[in-house]
């Protein structure tokens, strides 16, 4: 059981390191070919990709060095799945609400701000629902 967990952890680590490296490589390639100035409507993508890649590498390395062994049991998985479902329903309801509000009065908020708020909202909703459900189950 422990051996299987170790294998999974190792595999996850390799995947995370590969993804971070891929981000950096992608950022360097975009920067080298000067494609980053206007990429899908975003500017300076390459620098951000390199930055995020390096932050990811640092976080993964720090986690690997200092993280204590955490137990994830079946109850936590059960609560997490329920919290995910609640969050998903929340997103659907929120999208519906946004559509109605946008129909009444057009939303003039910048797309990047909107996405940032949305992601913060999703994370917050997940955490709150997880905390409430962990008191219930």
């Amino acid at each position, binding site marked *: 059981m422990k051996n299987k967990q170790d294998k999974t952890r190792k595999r996850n680590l390799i995947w995370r390191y590969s993804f971070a490296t891929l981000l950096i490589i992608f950022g360097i390639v975009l920067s080298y070919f000067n494609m980053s100035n206007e990429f899908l409507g975003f500017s300076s993508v390459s620098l951000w990709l390199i930055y995020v890649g390096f932050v990811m590498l640092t976080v993964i390395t720090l986690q690997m060095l200092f993280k204590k062994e955490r137990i994830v049991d*079946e*109850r936590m998985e059960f609560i997490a799945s329920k919290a995910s479902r609640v969050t998903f329903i929340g997103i659907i309801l929120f999208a519906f609400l946004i559509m109605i509000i946008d129909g009444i009065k057009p939303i003039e908020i910048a797309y990047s701000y909107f996405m940032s708020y949305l992601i913060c909202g999703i994370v917050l909703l997940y955490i709150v629902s997880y905390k409430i459900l962990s008191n219930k*189950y």
Partner: protein
Amino acid sequence: MKTKIAFYRKKLNITQEELAELVGVTRQTILVLEQGKYNPSLLLAYKITNALKQKKIEDVFKIK
């Protein structure tokens, strides 16, 4: 679900933390199991029964 985890645990003189470590779950899980708030899987019920040195799962867990 009604459980006798607390009863057998006290009989063996072990803490929730120790039992949690024995079966590979968190202390909170043992707490909610004792309170009967959470229904464990068959595997976890089996592990707890074994850790509490009981023979049958029905001795520890009872459906209300």
